[in-house]
Structure formats: C-alpha cells, structure tokens
C-alpha cells in the first residue's frame, strides 16, 4: 500500500470528486482533473467548483479541513503531464466507452510506467474498455468500483482482466483496504458486477410489482424495507436518492449486456409514470422530487407521494399495515400473509432471493462475497443468503417449485441445510461444490464476532461481557440496548479491572454495534427521577466517576476502540482510556446539555485538562475554560475521528483506523505496545478563573439568549456548566485538585438532574429522539 503515494482522479462529477475527497481522507495527495469548460475564466473551474461544493456538503465527503487541502484542482489540457508523477489514476468520467477510451490514450501517453489505471465504471465490462489498447496499458488496468457516497459506503468491487498484473490488483486491494477503509470484494467481469447486478434487479422487481399490483409507494417502502433488514428508504425512497433518470440508462445497459435467459429481462418492463416523472424534472432528490416530493405551497412543507398509476401526487401517508404487524419480526410470516401486501412482499423477495442464488459462481467466487457486497453496497442488514437462511432454504425452494420456476443449483445444494454454519467455532459457507468452506478473513483482521463464535465470555452480566482476544489482552464489550451506559457496565468494569490486573496485560473497550455507545441510559435515569430516587442517581454518578477514575489509575493500559457514535457517557469512557484507536467514522461528543445535564462522569474535568495541555491556546486562566465551554454548551459532536482530534475528544497521539474490520486488531496492537514500562498517569492540578470567569461565560450566554440562539433553560444548564469549568469559587492564584473539580462536577450534575426542565428534556429525548428546546 506504500506504493500509492499520489493519486489522480479524472472526472470531477459527483462520484469522481467524492472519490478524490476520500483519497484525501486517507492522507494521500490527489489531483482532481476535468475538462476546461467553454469560455471559463478559471480553467480548473469544474474541479475547483466540485471541491468548494464538497466543503459545504452534508453528509461531508471530507473528514476534516486538512483533507480538503490535499486535493489539487486541475484540468485535462494544462495538467496532463502531472499524471507522470502519479501512482494511481482513477477514471470517473461519463459512462461512454468511446470517451473513456480516448481518455485512456491520453492517460497512457502521460503516465509513468507501472502506474496503475482504474475505471470507476459501474456498467461497462473491463474487456470492452481495454479493447484495442496496448498490452502495457492492459496490464496496469483494472476496475475499482466505489459506491456512492464513497466516504461512507464501505464496499469496493475490484475487477481484474485477463491481462491485469496480479501485483497491480494487490496494490490497490491493500491501499483500498488499509488506507481507504474499504472491504474489497473480488468481482468477476460481468455486467454491473455484484451489488448493482442484484440491487438493480431487486429495485426493478419491486417497482414493477408495486405498479402492477396497485401497491402505493409508501406501502411498498414499508414492506420492502425494515422487515427484511433493508434501509428505511425502502425501494422508492432509495430510487429518489439514486436518481430516477439513471434507471432507464442502467436498465438499458444491463438489458443489452445480459444473456437472453437472464431473469432481468422479464422484470425490465416499463412503468409509464416513471418516464413522465423524469420528463417533468422529477428526477429524485437532486431534482424537484421523485416518487416523493416536498410540497411547499401554502408556506408549509408537506411530503407527498406519487400515484404509480396516474402520476398524481397526494399527501404521503404513514400506513399501518396489518401484514407487517402480524408478521412481527419474521420475514417469512410477512411473505405468507394472506393479503395483497403479503403477496407483494413474496413476489418481490422470492424473485430477488432466487436471482441472488442464480448469480452465485457467476458474479463472485463465494456467496459470502455476494452477501458482503449487498450489506456494504446497499446497506442491507443481512445479505441475500443470510436472509434465505433466516427464511429457510426449503421454504424458498418450495415456493419456486410451486411457481414452476427453476431452482438455482446453489439453492438446490442448500436443500435441507443452510448456506452458513458454525463448525468448531468458525463460520463456514456453502460452496458450489456442495461442501462447506471457511468464510475467509483478510490477513490481520480480528473480529469480535469471530471470537464470540469460538469462545465463552470470561465475565458477563446484563449489560456487558468480557472476552479474551489473545496475547494477554481482554476486550470489554457493551451489550446493553444501544450500548447505553448503566450501573451494570460500571460494575462489570470494576470486576474486569481486577481480572486484568491479576492475570492479563491490557484491556480494549470495543464492540461491533452500529454505535460504540449512545451515552447513559436515560430511561433508567428518568425512572429513578420520577420516583425521586435521588440517592440512587447520586450513586450512579459517583459510581461512574469512580469507575472511570479507576480505569485511569489501573496499572495496565486501556485502549478504547470506538466506531460510530460515542456520545455522552460513551464519550466519557473514551476520555478516560489511556489511548484510543478510533475508526475513522467515529462520531464523538459530549451532548449532555441536550437533555438538560452536564457531563458528570469526569468529562468536564478531562476536557479542561486536554485543552490546557494540548490546546495551543493563549496563556491565562480563561482560554481553556472558554474553549471547553464553547464545545460542551453547544453539544458539539465531531463528524469524524479527524474532527474529534481537532476538538480534543481524541488526543493528538490517538490512532485512527480507516477500515472498521481492522479496528480491534489495531487497538489490541496499540495496547500491547503500551504494556512495557506502563505507568498510570498521576493526579492533576488545575488553575481556573473562578467567579470572574463564570461571569464572562454568563455574559456570553446572555448574548446568545438575546440572539434567540439559547432558550431560558439553556441558560440554566450553561450556568451549571460554566460553574464547573470556571472552577466554582476558586481564584486564579489557587490550585484546584482533581478531586475537588470532580466533586464540583458531580454536585452541579445532581442539582440539574432533579429540575423539571431537565426531566422534560430527558422525557422528550426518550419519546421523540429530539432535544426539547425549553
């Protein structure tokens, strides 16, 4: 992967620009080129414009401001010679073979020997792309297919041709895996590769079946959505995101490329309403709307959905479907439900899953690759073969046989069995040969789920478990709902610290949930408050502080390894780790003020320490206090690990892992590297501004009130926060000990938690998921 030092992306459209941004996220310098627009003053206008747009886009293609500086805009007339210094050239221009081939000729003349050229094509086969090009080019050429948006979608399909050098594939595989954080799946050179081949079929069947059966789009999205573990956008919501205007192109290209016998042809029936929508500019979210639109007439925003038969929009409904309610969590029960809805779900999913089975061996080497591609490329919770296992292969076979449809060979091989099994603690998959084979993991990947399959926890209670991940390192896993923090986690942590000290070397805190932790269990807190169980609440706060302090005082290293959200108490546990190895997509923040609280488990104190130590702020008692106040009073959440470093939720020396699958291994290595000669950090002293600083912060809050940016209760909460961060009644010439500050933090927390304003905020958060602005 060190072979790639500089990258060029050609084509500054949505995909090309965002790929360039993600390469920059990896810390690699990247040249972004596009054509010179006619009559343009700035000859780099297309690339420069794309970079400027991306700086403001949400979700952000860049992980931080530093990344944006690594992208240099250029154009294809003045900057072609710069390709001579580039190790990897990614082509992401319009899907036209003639244009791509003309570009390849230019690239080939400019690039250095041995540099790698890849296309981000999603439809044109590799053999067609390199036809007629010199062998030296064909050897260095491959397809690297990213998914949109490239920063967030973890899939990259890698396609080599008959002439592609294996080392070129390995170089890109390693770079994409380690540096871009992608799960690289080898795809065969077949039309649309893996994920889009199945995904487009799935969407097409869902659309034509809905139109044919008169199922409204809102209902279709409910059915072909959550019950099967698909994103809640469902089918039509997803097409709105992708762009309706892409459908005819993609369908036409697949239709031309696929053999006559392919099931896609039968599904590729026109839906007249869609052509009408596209021609009127309803191309999806990028246009005026699509299957859904927001109607702003009359000053109010009304979400509307289109009628697939008439093309007329009407206010979108939120239907409660009996089929879904009665099926519970069983996709099979949904498909068996005796209703139009049940029959629709069955028609779509039986066809989709059978199609998936028919692709085994054709588009990828293994079923696990197809599953992984759908999970990472389409955000399915389970891939098609895991879904079939949940539904029952025999049930699916029976359905196909009853319909007189062919049963694909791999499905036949699964008759009476399943696609996956666990053998001696290892996950195995069914091969086309009818035998089970291990699901391979790339070298160096360590997954907690694999460890859990193969072993028993050393310690466990209702909210957490502790696993031996080898080499003397234990892993502390949250298992509570949404990985929320509670007294059981604190209790098990206390036990774990004892266990590690006695018999192990180091501890890693990690889990494979979508989010590391969403914070303290608010439901419990509210319950305790409602029955006025103040001593219990106090005990929870004290217990949390003590546990986190004990973590810091432990005579062995503790490494946090978060991915996804680490909020509130979940952030505070990271703040008390000796080091953090964070997944690049970690969203860390102290958001307590949103529920009318302040960090009470040492978060305020640790953040003060960090800003005083690493903050590069002017001298004096106030700057660190003011900075931490600014971050905490606005519940700032870092939108990447890089941003978390800028906010000092992560220390400068904390590590960032791009590939989530490598996070645990990296964290473990980090912990082991710290073992020798490890000493726990000592107690800290603080010099804080006291009441004068508090007065300055109060003034700032009043200004926000006047501006309408702070509510009356914000002022109360901010006051408590200001009290802690300014050090209470201290004086700038005094030194405050850590214990005193923690006591102050606890006392301000306890005063807030029993106030009506706070309880209202907690209740609202639990009921609506949104902060109450009281």
């Amino acid at each position, binding site marked *: 992967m060190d072979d790639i030092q500089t990258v060029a992306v050609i084509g500054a459209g949505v995909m090309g620009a965002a790929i360039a941004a993600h390469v920059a996220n990896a810390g690699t310098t990247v040249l972004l080129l596009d054509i010179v627009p006619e009559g343009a003053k700035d000859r780099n206008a297309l690339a420069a414009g794309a970079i400027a747009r991306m700086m403001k886009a949400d979700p952000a293609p860049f992980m931080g401001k530093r990344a944006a500086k690594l992208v240099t805009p250029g154009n294809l007339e003045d900057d072609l010679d710069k390709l001579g210094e580039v190790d990897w050239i990614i082509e992401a221009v319009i899907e036209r073979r003639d244009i791509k081939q003309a570009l390849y000729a230019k690239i080939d003349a400019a690039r250095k020997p041995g540099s790698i050229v890849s296309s981000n094509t999603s439809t044109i086969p590799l053999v067609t792309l390199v036809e007629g090009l010199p062998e030296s080019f064909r050897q260095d050429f491959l397809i690297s297919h990213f998914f949109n948006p490239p920063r967030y979608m973890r899939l990259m399909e890698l396609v080599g041709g008959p002439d592609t050098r294996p080392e070129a594939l390995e170089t890109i595989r390693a770079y994409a895996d380690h540096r871009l954080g992608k799960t690289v799946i080898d795809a065969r050179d077949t039309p649309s590769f893996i994920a889009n081949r199945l995904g487009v079929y799935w969407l097409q069947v869902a659309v034509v079946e809905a139109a044919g059966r008169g199922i409204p789009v809102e209902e279709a999205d409910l059915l072909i959505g959550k019950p099967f573990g698909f994103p809640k956008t469902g089918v039509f919501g997803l097409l709105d995101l992708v762009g309706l205007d892409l459908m005819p192109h993609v369908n036409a290209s697949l239709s031309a490329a696929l053999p006559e016998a392919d099931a896609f042809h039968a599904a590729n029936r026109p839906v007249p309403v869609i052509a009408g929508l596209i021609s009127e500019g309803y191309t999806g979210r990028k246009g005026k709307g699509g299957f859904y639109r927001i109607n702003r007439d009359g000053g109010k925003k009304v979400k509307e959905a289109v009628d697939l038969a008439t093309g007329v929009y009407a206010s979108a409904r939120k239907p409660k479907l009996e089929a879904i309610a009665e099926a519970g969590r069983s996709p099979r029960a949904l498909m068996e439900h005796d209703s139009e809805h049940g029959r629709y779900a069955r028609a779509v999913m039986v066809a989709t899953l059978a199609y998936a089975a028919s692709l085994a061996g054709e588009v990828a080497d293994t079923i696990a690759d197809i599953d992984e591609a759908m999970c990472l490329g389409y955000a399915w919770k389970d891939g098609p073969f895991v879904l079939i296992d949940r539904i029952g292969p025999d049930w699916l076979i029976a359905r196909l046989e009853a319909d007189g449809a062919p049963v694909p060979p791999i499905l036949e091989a699964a008759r009476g069995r399943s696609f996956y099994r666990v053998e001696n603690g290892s996950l195995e998959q069914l091969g086309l040969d009818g035998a089970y084979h291990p699901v391979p993991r790339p070298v160096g990947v360590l997954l907690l789920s694999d460890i859990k399959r193969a072993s028993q926890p050393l310690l466990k209670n209702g909210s957490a478990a502790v696993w031996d991940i080898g080499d003397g390192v234990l892993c502390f896993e949250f298992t509570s709902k949404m990985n929320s923090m509670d007294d059981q986690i604190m209790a098990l942590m206390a036990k774990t610290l004892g266990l590690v000290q006695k018999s192990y070397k180091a501890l890693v805190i990690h889990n494979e949930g979508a989010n590391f932790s969403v914070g303290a269990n608010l439901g419990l807190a509210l319950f305790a408050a409602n029955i006025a169980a103040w001593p219990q609440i106090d005990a929870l706060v004290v217990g949390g502080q003590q546990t986190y302090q004990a973590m810091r005082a432990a005579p062995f290293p503790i490494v946090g390894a978060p991915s996804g959200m680490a909020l509130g108490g979940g952030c505070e546990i990271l703040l008390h780790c000796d080091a953090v190895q964070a997944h690049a997509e970690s969203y860390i923040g102290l958001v307590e003020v949103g529920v009318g609280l302040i960090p009470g488990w040492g978060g305020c104190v640790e953040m003060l320490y960090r800003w005083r130590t690493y903050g590069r702020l*002017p001298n004096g008692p106030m700057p660190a206090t003011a900075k931490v106040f600014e971050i905490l009073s606005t519940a700032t959440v870092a939108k990447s690990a890089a941003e978390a470093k800028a906010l000092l939720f992560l220390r400068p020396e904390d590590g960032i892992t791009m590939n989530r699958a490598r996070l645990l291994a990296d964290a473990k290595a980090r912990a082991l590297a710290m073992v020798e000669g490890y000493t726990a950090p000592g107690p800290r002293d603080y010099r804080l501004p006291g009441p*004068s600083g508090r*007065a300055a912060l109060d003034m700032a809050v*009043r*200004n926000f009130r*006047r*501006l309408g*940016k702070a509510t009356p209760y914000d002022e109360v909460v901010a006051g408590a926060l200001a009290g802690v961060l300014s050090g209470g009644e201290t004086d700038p010439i005094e030194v405050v000990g850590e214990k005193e500050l923690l006591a102050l933090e606890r006392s301000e927390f306890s005063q807030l938690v029993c106030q009506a304003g706070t309880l209202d905020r907690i209740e609202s958060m639990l009921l609506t998921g949104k902060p109450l602005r009281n």
Partner: protein
Amino acid sequence: MTRVVVAGYARSPFTLATRGALARVRPDDLAAQVVRGLVARTGVNSEDIEDLLLGCAFPEGEQGLNLARLVGLMAGLPRSVGAATVNRFCGSSMTSVHIAAGSIAMGAGDVFICVGVESMSRVPMMGFNPLPHPIFAKSNPEFYIGMGDTAENVAQRWQISRAEQETFALRSQQRAAAAIAEGRITDEIIPITAGDSVIETDGCPRPETTLEGLASLKPAFSAEGLVTAGTSSPLTDGASAVLVCSEAYAEKAGLPVLAYVRAVAVRGCDPEFMGIGPVGASRRALERAGISAGDLDVVELNEAFASQSIACIRDLGLDPKRVNLDGGAIALGHPLGATGARIVGKAASLLAREKGRYALATQCIGGGQGIATVLEAA
C-alpha cells in the same frame, strides 16, 4: 499658549479581521511600518521626536507589553525617543493626540508621533482572558455591555428605523467607493509588506452594497433587533499615525501644517448608550473652541454603528453633507485603537482639501464615553 499643529497623517490599509490580507500581520509590525512611513513622508527629523504615544484598545498578547516602545524601536526611531501605550478603547489614539497637544501646550516637548493600532484578528475583543468583576457584572451588567446591544439601545431610544440605518450605511459605502475610485484615499495609505506580498488597498469596503441586500440581512445582536452586520462597522485590522508638533517647530523644520488643534474634550455617558458619547464631548470641545456646529465645514464622526451615528448627527445638529466625506467606518472599517488617529488625520487633511475653516473629529467609546477634537485650518 503654544499652538499645536497636525503636520502629517498616514495609515495602513484597513482589512477585514481574520479573512483580510492583514490578518497574519502582527500588530507591532503593522504599526511600525506606518510609523516608519509617516516619518519618511513628512521628513521630520526623528531625533527631534519627544515621545511616541500609541493607542490600542486591547493591549495584550501581540499587542501587550509596552507596545509603543517596541513599535518605536522596530520603526527605527532613535532609542532616545520615549514611548507610552494609551488605552481608552476606541478613543485610544485620539487620546494620544490630546496628550501630545497638552504636552506641547505646557512646553513638555515639540514633536510627538501619535499612533493607533488594532489587530482584531490576532487579539479578540475582550482579550484572551475576559475576567469581569463577578459582583459588578451581576449588579451592573451595563458596565460590561456588548457594543451591539448599545447600538440597539440607541436605535430604540432615538427611534431610528432599520431602513434609516441602512440608508446611512449605503451612503457610507457609496462615499467610500467614490473616494477610492477617484484616488482620494491613496495618498493616506502606507503599503504594508508582509512576507513576499505588499498590501496597499483597503479590504473592508463593499461597493456593491444595495438597499435590498442590506434589507435581507439578519439582525446581528438581538433576534428582534434593528442592527445588522451591514449597519455596523466590521471587525478590522489596521494602524494609523499622525505627526503632532508645535507651530514653531513646524515652521522651523518646514513641515506642512494640515491644521491647528483648536480644542479637545472627553465626556462620559451611560454605558448602555455609549454610542451617544460624541454628543457631550463634541459640545464641550465646540464650546471650548468658541464655535458652534454650524461653523463646521468638515466632520469625521466614527461610524461604530449607523444607529449611533444618526443619533449623534441629529442631537448635535450636524449637516449630514459635511459628515464623513470619503465614507466612514461602516465602509472603511474600525480597527479600535487606530480609528482616533485616522479621523483626526483625515479631518485635518479634508480641511485642507475642502478649504474649510473648522473641522470636528469625534467618536464614541465602549463603557460610555465620547471624545472630540476641533481643528482649525492653517
């Protein structure tokens, strides 16, 4: 009594804080270059300078220590020249002119360089360690009131509508744009060298300003307020300097006299209505000069905000046509400590250019004060 004259004026370009071309220039560097430029332009013998008096509103960080002394040394003035840093917030460098005038009048020196500087990019308002007195901050919040809030207070009490403020702001922008386009400002600017680049033009003016554009801005200080960024002076970086000396010295050294300093005054007012400060101070200064507002040919009234400028014009009975002929701080910018020297120097230059007899330079000051200087043509 010895007569005091303004014998030279120069300033750096004024540029927007943080985003502007001077954001990365240290304030000591900035002021030193202006002092060096003024000495070179006037040809004053630097051995004769008694004192360098430098105004700065937030003298800490890079503006800390005795900034005046460092600026004098960096500007290459002889080590024998004294130096003092003066703080009266926005009135700082006008105060340095007053100190010089008083000193000359009592025979305590002949030649003074009166400087002002503020890098609002590099030293924030309130400073790096705002530590207000906790008891007074609670019992008398007006002691520490934000400037935007005072502008809203003035707009309320003097009933100055948002539209009226915007018309005033537009006029300031138009006058500044015309003055720049016609080259009427070039002469006062000392190009500033920063690394490899030379900064020689003002960065704050927005000649493209329209009433529609101004009307579309959100209130800047209060959700229901009438004051916007468009009707306020922007946060600015800049430095300015005037050469103040005795009439006898100017004559002997052959220095051109821009104007005589005829009278000066300061006067406090309610902190929450600080914008009205120029009224009391100007009345006193005019009285001391024995003239009335109607006698003024040129007025430089610092436009901290449109609302307070309009209120002062009304209460003093000034002729708007004679106020801020080349635009004011809303367009040109307001580097706090530098503004006083700028408007004294500008008023003196305008008096010569417009061939008038009397000029007034006046400004409001945070905490509730006004300061004023009356000049008379040479």
